[in-house]
């Protein structure tokens, strides 16, 4: 999942970015409204964590422009403004959630996870594909009841595929949602991680779950054996 953290106070922005990355998210960051709009146009972020008081263009104006451009990203407003009017104003402009500073990072993380579930229309925190279980709250994966150890990037890739079960996702989609601007855009990096993921979740004798659709992308799901 790919996030955009927009916060002008550098120490907070750095800590949020670090926390989200360590939680398995691809994170882009911006320190002002102008940069936020540029990042939002350049990448497809699942959730944008947006401060309201920003230099150059304030957060509410950024939100308004995002909604005018029909951005599919969900927006969580992060602000020190705590009056009911501020919240109503932000939500009516198209924000999907609102969190007042100071907050616990765990709460912010939980809200971001909830927004991701909402985006992919999954109500449960456990995604099931055949005998594969992806627990998005605990960030652990099991197949046939046996735990599978995945790296952060592998888990992020699997979670994205799991949120799009039985749908073909292109390499570009994967790149857009799993990698941030800090990752080097090598042409076969997605294929390499798909290969690594297959080795870990597809054991000999067990049905294949990750399928390649030549020229289209990948699909996670239980297919009928031909």
């Amino acid at each position: 999942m790919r996030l955009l953290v927009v916060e002008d106070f550098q120490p907070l922005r750095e800590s949020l970015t670090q926390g989200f990355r360590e939680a398995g998210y691809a994170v882009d960051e911006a320190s002002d409204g102008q940069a936020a709009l540029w990042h939002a146009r350049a990448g497809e972020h699942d959730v944008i964590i947006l401060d309201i008081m920003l230099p150059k263009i304030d957060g509410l104006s950024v939100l308004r422009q995002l909604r005018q451009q029909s951005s599919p990203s969900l927006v969580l407003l992060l602000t020190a403004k705590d009056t009911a009017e501020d919240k109503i104003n932000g939500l009516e402009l198209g924000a999907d959630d609102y969190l007042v500073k100071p907050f616990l990072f765990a709460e912010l993380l939980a809200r971001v996870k909830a927004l991701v579930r909402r985006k992919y229309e999954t109500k449960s925190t456990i995604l099931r594909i055949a005998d594969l279980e992806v627990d998005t709250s605990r960030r652990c994966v099991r197949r046939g009841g046996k735990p599978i150890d995945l790296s952060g990037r592998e888990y992020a890739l699997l979670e994205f595929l799991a949120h799009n079960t039985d749908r073909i996702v292109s390499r570009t989609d994967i790149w857009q949602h799993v990698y941030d601007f800090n990752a080097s855009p090598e042409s076969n990096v997605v294929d390499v991680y798909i290969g690594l993921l297959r080795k870990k979740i597809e054991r000999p004798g067990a049905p294949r779950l990750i399928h390649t659709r030549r020229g289209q992308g990948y699909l996670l799901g239980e297919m009928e054996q031909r």
Partner: protein
Amino acid sequence: MIRSLRIRLLIHTSLAAAVILGLLGAALYFCMRQSTESDFNLALLAKGRAVASTAEQHGQQIIFDYAPEQMPQFVTSDHPDYFQAWIDPDVVIRSPSLKQNDLPRPPNNSQLTYADLVLPDGRSGRAVSMSFVTTIEPLAEGNSPGTENARTIVLSVATETIGLHRTLQNLGWLLVGLCSFAVVVSGIVLLWIVGRAVRPVERIARDIDQLRENDLSTRLRSSDVPLELQGVVEKLNGLLSRLEAAFSREKAFTADVAHELRTPLTALLTTFEVCRSRPRDEAAYLAAIDKCRNVAQLMQAMVEMLLLLARAEAGQLSLKLQSTDAADLIDDCWALFSGRAEARRLNVQWQAVGPIPIETDPEKLRIILHNLFDNAVSYADEAGALRVSATLSADVFRVEVANTASRLGPEQSSHFFDRFWRGDQARTDVGIHCGLGLPLCQRLSRLLKGEIEIQTTERGWFIARLTLPAGRLEEPAASDEIPVISSAV
């Protein structure tokens, strides 16, 4: 000391009414007494003249020719009147009522005199004395009446004054009674009038009592207040307006402080939380600790600036005046920013050549210069320009710090000295410019008896001009007042 305005008004007005009524009663009594005594004296004089009119002189003989039945009061034994006449020195006649007694002999002159006396029967009385010349009756035909041998008779007529005294006494008591009644009635009327007069005061007191500290928007009604209280109501409403404005400012200030501290506080919490979410190596922990320390230092700087601003606004800062070379001070302050200016490749134009001797508080001036330099270096565009000039003329010291890349327009000039106002309404990545520096500079410059003004130009210059008196200042005494906003910090 009677503290009730109603009772004091009642007592004072009642006393005044009693004194006025008493004086009026006394004056009326004396007028009526004069009138009554005058009537009594006229009646007595009429009796005397009636007696005198009966006196006839026949040759050398004096005869009072009156019939007792015509003047029974001089004959009867019950409450009689008396008269007695003298032709010097002999008694000519006594009224029968006198028997062998005498009336006091009046002085032998022609003036009409009245005298109080004790009548022969022991009653109090009054006598009128008069002198007159007898009428000579003709003794034989052919003699005409004349005055050649007329004799002067002194006549004294006396009558009792018991009736007069009783009348005057009754009149006195009547007036005392009337005055007392009038005082009581006027007291009751005054009680009602005073009650009505102080009713607006009581209503204002009720209105004031209904004021609540959490809603100072209420104003006292001035529509049906007497003219004398209009001023009081207007002053109270003015005070309420000022209090409301002050409370609103403090409320906004408290909200601003809370708001400004939330972001760095969140940064601290998030950094701690992320740091302890998993085991890390020593370098990662040290980096997190350093970050938290930097954030804490920013918060400390903000709190200290708030406290300084609060003390300045409450008049709690004292001046420590001393002779200072302002050029040296400017150089010292600039030394802290020259590195940052160089790193940002700013073109610094310097027009502050010393010595510039002034009498000021160098620490306060240092804080002002520090803020002005910090703003200029922070907000100037990369490779932009920064201009510093200092001059001394006619005992006025002027410092100008200007930088390019101002995005602020004249329409924002009214906010430059508002607390927590920022041109961009956000922190920038060059530090925590939370909108307290310029308000603090303004307070401190006023403390130094100077002024600071900001000008923005169309070409993007942001110019801060500080003007201070260079001569001796009087050191103000520090106030003991506790600043309200310090509690908010």
